[in-house]
């Protein structure tokens, strides 16, 4: 990742200016991981936990689409770029476990994800997956790359005691919505 960061700095794609920090011409802000955990907790308390998924899906869709238009990169090459940006932004290191670009069916593994790691550290193991923000990032990114509305479900989560977090990504109609954990994660999605 240090190479990617150095490349961004030399190509002036990551700029620190008096008016703020910019990555690919988008103004960016930094926050500690525990802010997002607090946000998630508050949203759960108000019964609006899907807001974080929605917001991060929109954010990632817009960012990846901008990059696609700026640099005319597509498909897998764009996915690799999106992954590198997500790593440098602190969301953890992800990789495709399975990728079917024809049927829009993907499995993604996420390592060193700060949200579950911080939750385990502060509150212990959870009963349900917790990576709703990364779910949104992955869903929005792949929607922008494929041009198809893709949703994401976290099937394994480090916060539940798994070694890594794992996600299934595909169009909404391809998910079995009778399964409670899928329904729970997607029912309130846009």
């Amino acid at each position, binding site marked *: *990742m*240090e190479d990617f*960061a150095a490349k961004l700095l030399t190509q002036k794609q990551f700029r*620190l*200016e*008096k*008016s*703020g*920090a910019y*990555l690919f011409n*988008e*103004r*960016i*802000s*930094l*926050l*500690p*991981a*525990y*802010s*997002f955990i*607090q*946000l998630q907790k*508050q*949203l759960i308390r*108000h019964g*609006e936990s899907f*807001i974080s998924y*929605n*917001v*991060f899906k*929109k*954010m990632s869709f*817009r*960012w990846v689409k901008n990059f696609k238009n700026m640099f005319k990169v597509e498909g897998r090459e764009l996915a690799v770029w999106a992954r590198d940006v997500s*790593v*440098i*932004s*602190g*969301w*953890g*290191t992800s990789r495709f476990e399975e990728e079917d670009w024809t049927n829009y069916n993907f499995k993604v593994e996420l390592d*060193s994800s*700060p949200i579950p790691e*911080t939750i385990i550290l502060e509150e212990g193991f959870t009963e349900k997956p917790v990576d709703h923000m990364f779910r949104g990032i992955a869903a929005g990114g792949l929607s922008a790359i494929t041009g198809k509305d893709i949703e994401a479900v976290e099937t394994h989560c480090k916060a539940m005691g798994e070694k890594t977090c794992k996600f299934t990504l595909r169009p909404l109609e391809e998910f079995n919505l009778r399964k409670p954990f899928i329904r729970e994660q997607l029912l309130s999605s846009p």
Partner: protein
Amino acid sequence: MFELVSALLAQNKFKIEKNGLELLGQKMFMVPTFAFVELQKELKEKKINHVAYDVFKYTSLRWTKNLKDSYHMNSDQVLNWARDTATICGWGTARIVHKDFEKKFASLKLEDSAVASTILKEQGISKHPVDHMFRGLIAGTLSTVLGADVEAVETHCVAQGANECWFVVKPMDSFDKSVELVKNQLKIGRKICY
């Protein structure tokens, strides 16, 4: 900002590593500012817009408490570091215009506000002040510095056409709750509508 970032990088207090960003020992996330604008919009639609203020107040309370406890800083040092980290983190450049530790009062101005300038650019002039996240950040910071639970109200906002964003910080009891601006921004009678 360059000097500050260079100094932090040199002192290993700002790190870009394989598994992400770290600032003063805390794992950080980098997010485009429009995500926070979008978050505020969604929270407003669900009538839980105070969540943004509450979460950011919690964040800065914890951040400044860590500065105070781990780095043994006094109030002025905490205030300077909080201001510098807010700038590095892209929230804008804040300056305390007036502070009275005894009366638990402060007024601040913010230049280049991330949220207000993004809203102005993307949605045009706003009817109300929009810096609820930054309000939370200064309320938490000054609660640590002043040693009392204080709240923040934004009185002028770039998104409304002002040159800078201005904030007043003091304990909840000291605000005139009949003022619409105060009523709208603070949790008075659970009727929150900013």
